């Protein structure tokens, strides 16, 4: 595939389809969207198959000096590959989730989704810092429209909050980028990743980038846009928001904050730990008392993302790999959970937990899938959630036992609120007649659930498939961070083996 611009093609297919969706009759827009996302999925599979694991760090690179000030420069490493794969995998599911539930202005809806896909792939594939920024920011427009036009009751408030929050975070990052480009004299991300900025400047640059990524992530206390946006967005919007958009913050940390400002990252690690610990405990407790299913899952997302951030700032390979795996796993599982909510929302048009109950009686297959995703969200061994959380916490334990301890409570609380949710929805008596009359999954829903469930199990049972592509890149990042690595609080010293005494005792026994 050398020289074939597959990344540009992956960007072009949804873009062309987005325009097509606006002009074709509205009943056909969804078919156009599905075909386009499936083509992109196939391209994604080809991309993964052609990706040379252990080969050059940046593959599929293409470059064209089309613009003044920055260039069209694409290329991926293992980290970007996995996130692109996640994107193209989730997109057809999102289209499927919207298949019947979107009944107004379909053309614009699918156009917005396809545009989102282009921009998300663009974010992960961009190798030019300003190209990255443009893709990163441009996502605001379609997401604003998706929430505002097709959302629920408070959609307008949620859409404003989403837009202005994330915009404010991002503009400061742009100023920091100008400074960096001015200082380093290049807009090329790989070059910038290896550039050593003065430690003094790193502090400011890190904070500017943090302002953007923390909001996108989202970290406590700037997470408040997320529950609003999630709850008000249509199912497809929630899936893509939780599945991919939240990963942009984590990707930003991996691609920019950590390698470009290692010293500042080490300096601010305690701040990140504090915010993450607060997020894990606080948002998990908030999730416990939610009566709205989507809000509950939204808060659980914040808690999971907090474990991602501690893992990232653990400055070691386990932490980084774990964080990446949580991001992938969360993308699948949170997406699947929103989908599960969407399935019953389509039937009863309410997200109130109390309106359901005993669904395992009339919807047994649904209950099985929902249980699987619930367990994956908790992090049950054998599901995708376990691997990432285990590695992340292992990584952070090397730096700070306390942070590891407090973050682990998140797993326990996670089990509490997820199991409580599941009990109220799927078990117990069927106290609502209309909920008891809901039919089980139809073919379309099966088609969406099965691939998600399969990948969740695959990642839980054989995570090597997902770790292998990024291992070398994570190792490179780890090496880059070594210069600034903070000391752990536990300093185990090798014990003195008591070989002689043991031998003596052994001899005497005979």
């Amino acid at each position, binding site marked *: 595939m050398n020289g074939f611009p597959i990344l540009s093609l992956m960007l072009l297919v949804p873009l062309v389809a987005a325009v097509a969706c606006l002009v074709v009759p509205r009943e056909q827009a969804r078919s156009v969207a599905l075909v386009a996302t499936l083509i992109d999925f196939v391209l994604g599979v080809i991309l993964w198959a052609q990706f040379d694991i252990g080969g050059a760090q940046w593959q599929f690179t293409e470059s064209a000096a*089309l*613009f003044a000030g920055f260039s069209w420069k694409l290329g991926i490493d293992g980290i970007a590959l996995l996130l692109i794969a996640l994107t193209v995998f989730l997109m057809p599911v999102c289209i499927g989730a919207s298949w019947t539930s979107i009944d107004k202005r379909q053309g614009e809806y699918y156009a917005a989704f396809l545009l989102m896909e282009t921009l998300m792939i663009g974010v992960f594939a961009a190798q030019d810092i*300003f190209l990255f920024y443009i*893709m990163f920011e441009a996502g605001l427009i379609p997401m*604003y*429209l998706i929430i505002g036009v097709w959302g629920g009751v408070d959609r*307008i408030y949620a859409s404003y909050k989403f837009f*202005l929050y994330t915009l404010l975070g991002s503009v400061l990052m*742009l*100023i920091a980028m100008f400074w960096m480009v001015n200082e380093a004299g290049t807009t090329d991300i790989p070059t910038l990743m290896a550039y050593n900025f003065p430690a003094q400047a790193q502090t400011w640059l890190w904070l500017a980038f943090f302002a953007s990524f923390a909001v996108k992530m989202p970290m406590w206390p700037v997470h408040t846009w997320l529950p609003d946006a999630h709850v008000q967005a249509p199912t497809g919007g929630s899936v893509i928001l939780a599945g991919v958009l939240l990963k942009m913050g984590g990707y930003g940390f991996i691609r920019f904050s950590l390698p470009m400002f290692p010293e500042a990252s080490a300096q601010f690690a305690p701040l990140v730990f504090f915010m993450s610990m607060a997020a894990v405990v606080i948002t998990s407790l908030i999730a416990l008392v939610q009566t709205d299913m989507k809000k509950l899952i939204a808060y659980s997302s914040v808690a999971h993302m907090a474990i991602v951030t501690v893992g990232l700032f653990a400055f070691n390979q386990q932490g980084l790999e774990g964080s990446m795996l949580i991001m992938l796993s969360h993308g699948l599982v949170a997406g699947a959970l929103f989908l599960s909510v969407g399935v019953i929302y389509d039937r009863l048009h309410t997200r109130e937990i109390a309106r359901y109950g005993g669904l395992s009686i009339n919807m047994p297959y649904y209950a099985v899938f929902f249980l699987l995703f619930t367990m994956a969200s908790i992090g049950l061994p054998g599901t995708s959630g376990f691997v990432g959380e285990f590695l992340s916490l292992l990584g952070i334990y090397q730096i700070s036992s306390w942070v590891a301890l407090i973050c682990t409570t998140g797993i326990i609380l996670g089990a509490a609120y997820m199991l409580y949710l599941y009990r109220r929805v799927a078990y117990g008596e069927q106290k609502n007649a209309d909920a008891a009359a809901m039919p089980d999954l139809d073919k379309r829903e099966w088609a969406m659930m099965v691939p998600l469930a399969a990948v969740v199990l695959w990642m839980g049972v054989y995570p090597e498939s997902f770790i292998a592509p990024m291992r070398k890149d994570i190792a490179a990042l780890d090496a880059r961070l070594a210069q600034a690595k903070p000391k752990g609080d536990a300093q185990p010293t090798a014990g003195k083996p008591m070989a002689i005494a043991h031998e003596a005792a052994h001899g005497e026994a005979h």
Partner: protein
Amino acid sequence: MDFARSLALTAPEILLSVSGLVLLMVAGWGGDKASRLISIAAVAVLTACAFLTAPTLWGQAMGAEVSAFGGQHRADTFAAFAKLLIYASAGVTLIIAQPFFDKARAMRAEFPLLVLFASLGMGMMVSAGDLLALYIGLELNSLASYVLASSLRTDERSAESGLKYFVLGSLASGILLFGMSLTYGFTGTTSFAGINAALAGGLPTGATFGLIFMLAGLAFKISAAPFHMWTPDVYEGAPTPVTTFFATASKVAALGLLMRVAFEAFGGQAQAWQQVVIFMALLSIVIGALGAIGQNNIKRLMAYSSINNVGFILIGLATATRAGASAMLVYIAIYVAMSVAGFVAVLLLRDENGEQVEAISDLAGLSKTRPWIALAMASVMFSLAGIPPLFGFWGKFVVFQAAVQADMIVLAAIGIAASVIGAFYYLKVVKVMYFDEPADVVKGAGETSHTVLLVLSTLAISPLGYLGTKCVGTLANYAAAALFPVG
């Protein structure tokens, strides 16, 4: 003194004056019935002028060899860049004005003539190398503009807008003239180069006052805060094609003039005006953003938006560098495209009686009833807000990049953070068009010429515009080089 060469260098101006006078005769004998013919002829004249001007820009002509009439007039790359924008804007104005006034049964033969004379004045403003040429150009433009603002004679708002513009504009001209006379008094010369040389040793207090008064007068002309008060009223009251003219050509000319004065006449004393410009820039951004929030008239909103955008352009001026000047020109070019798209979209909004729809609340649900106009309008709004991937982002990009390169990071950070306030009201328009239930007010059909212009300008501000960044950037660099011969 090579008189013939001077005449050759001022060929676009001479062509404009002569054809303006000839068309005046046509108007005198033909009356209002000839207005269509005159409009077409005027567009042809503007096109010819553009062709006369373009080689200057491509040929990178600057310095002494393009200085005419003893330095009064400069036909350099900077003037050429600004003039191309002015001629294009004037052409657009004439094209959109014809159907507009036809519908209102108010098309008069002098309208295209006034546009021509205003363009002539603007051309002289941006080419000025001397305070006298500056003032003549400015007044020629202003007088024509005052009449244009009130050209819808049966409409009270139009008359009011013309009167307001005239009273406040004369005041500003007076302030400017006072500043110019102080400057002349303390430097002993009216030529920009002479002033710069005279001030090389330092800025006497009197000249400082002169500078401040000139800045105040020019700030009025570009509608920068705190001299912006006339803008919303004039923009709202003037007929929409005239508003388009003010938002595009007048803005280009006044900003071009300000750049000439700041960089050429007072270029050696940049630190004396930088603080003032920074103050005006930040104030314009904030006032433009906050003032717009409560507006329900789309034209008033565009007026506040123009104040807001002038603030961003002034950030480029505040850097006092060549990169900053180039960034300003890029921003201005993009701003012209955004304004044209915005106002042409407004022109296409008509209710069933063919009346203009200007209330934002009447745009409710436009995306359902008129999806393409709504899409164009939304592109304009996001573009004005500077959200990528729309092209308006590029203007902010180059301006803030220049500010960071000039080591004005705090200014850049504050300015860009304040731009988020502006995003709020642009979003409001999109919200009304896309999220609200249709008010079903917009019904009328648009003109073909309007639609074509809307499509073209929307394409220019769409992400496709980025493909033009190299071209625009190079030309803007040529133009900025004329202001900074050594830099």
